[in-house]
């Protein structure tokens, strides 16, 4: 059961019950903040959380996300280099011959 989607916590709606409002692309739903209440609730406002069946299940770590994207970026650059090398080899190859 894995449908979970990032949403931003925008408001605390019921501090006693640990409820807050999450915003997913402009769609709002009251969610339980119980699982992510590792700090005063007010400090959760603005944080992104993974929302599943009406619960904020985990806070999303921006640094880790950036790191994952950077790794992908690196892969892209390496790929570009590989493609350029292939292009270069193709240019140097005698006519009619295909270099893979």
């Amino acid at each position, binding site marked *: *059961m*894995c*449908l*979970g*989607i*990032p949403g931003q916590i925008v408001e605390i709606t019921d501090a006693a*019950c640990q409820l807050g409002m999450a915003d997913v*692309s402009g769609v709002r*739903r009251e969610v*339980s903040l*119980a*699982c*992510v*209440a*590792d700090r005063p609730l007010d400090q959760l406002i603005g944080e*992104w959380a*993974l929302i*599943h*069946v*009406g*619960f904020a*299940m*985990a806070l*999303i*770590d*921006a640094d*880790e*996300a950036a*790191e*994952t*994207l950077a*790794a*992908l*970026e690196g*892969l*892209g650059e*390496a*790929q*570009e280099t*590989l493609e350029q090398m292939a292009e270069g080899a193709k240019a140097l190859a005698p006519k009619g011959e295909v270099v893979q």
Partner: protein
Amino acid sequence: MRYVEEFRDPVKARAVLAEIARVTDQIGATAENPVRIMEICGGHTHAIFRYGLDKLTPEGLEFIHGPGCPVCVLPMARVDECVEIAEQEGVIFTTFGDAMRVPGTRKSLLQAKADGADIRMVYSPLDALELARRNPEREVVFFGLGFETTTPSTALTIQQAARENIRNFSVFCNHITVPPPIRALLDDPHMRLDGFVGPGHVSMVIGTHPYDFIAQDYGKPIVVAGFEPLDLLQSVLMVLVQIRDGVARVENQYARVVPEHGNPVSLAAIEDVYEPRPSFEWRGLGEIDASGLRIRDGYKAFDAEEKFGIGYAAGTRNVPEPEGCACGAVMTGRMKPTECPQFGRGCTPDMPLGALMVSSEGACAAYWTYGGARAVEPAE
């Protein structure tokens, strides 16, 4: 950052796909002798087909669709029990939409609703509890199904019901856990798997250590993965690199959501409300030790099994799978959906025979819906 679009960038995907092709080649995998990676979670199966990733990865890489779709592994007997509870006088039976169309022996919940049972789809167990507050004269039952991702939500809801002393609310607990069936699959001598893509949202609750045995005891790599296409591709690549390098580790591609040790609040709630059953029945896989949860005695007042005397614990039901249904073989990777004699004949999304055709996460429904079966010819 919205943590969605960034992980759907097709340009970045091309680079990962090229690297996947290169590493698959280095492994020496071919269409005849493929490297076989199981994506455990149905959400990953869905994403593979939703984005057409199966058609972009090399022939030497085969995805085996794992048992991580709770609706698919739900035995028919459990559906029958749901219907039986739902048809009791005074009951409002609440469920996620996923379970509505799953066939039971007599009928599905959707059919039971048409026959007059008060069955309501909810988005959250909290909504079911709210129904109980508003309808004190009715018994509101919530069908608790799903893996560790969903278990904390029902545990926290039961705790809330206990705090408010809401006596007309109960959960029909059919929660299951991911690691035991993985072990069962790895113990199956017919099974040939080279590595795993691990379930990201289950892992945000339980962390990555419950998978240590996969690497340590069975020597297979596993990478916990997010659900966006780039997450999935990157994870597949990480598994392939481990296979190529001859190592087996538990890696975490989804670190932005999955902490190594999981979520302490969720784990505490599960521990407080639930305990493992000695064993539990899985559709297609049979009985698996300690793979299901039941409500602890302390929360007995909120246990629908106790209230109605219906459920797995009562042990009264033994419903054989429908004749000809090969869901079990498909689920264990022994058969591809298209190799099932019933696929597209006796079993279609309109008239499903087995659960794998019902849930959109089911391998068969995904094959059918997204064209694994009915090959999509490339555009010129």
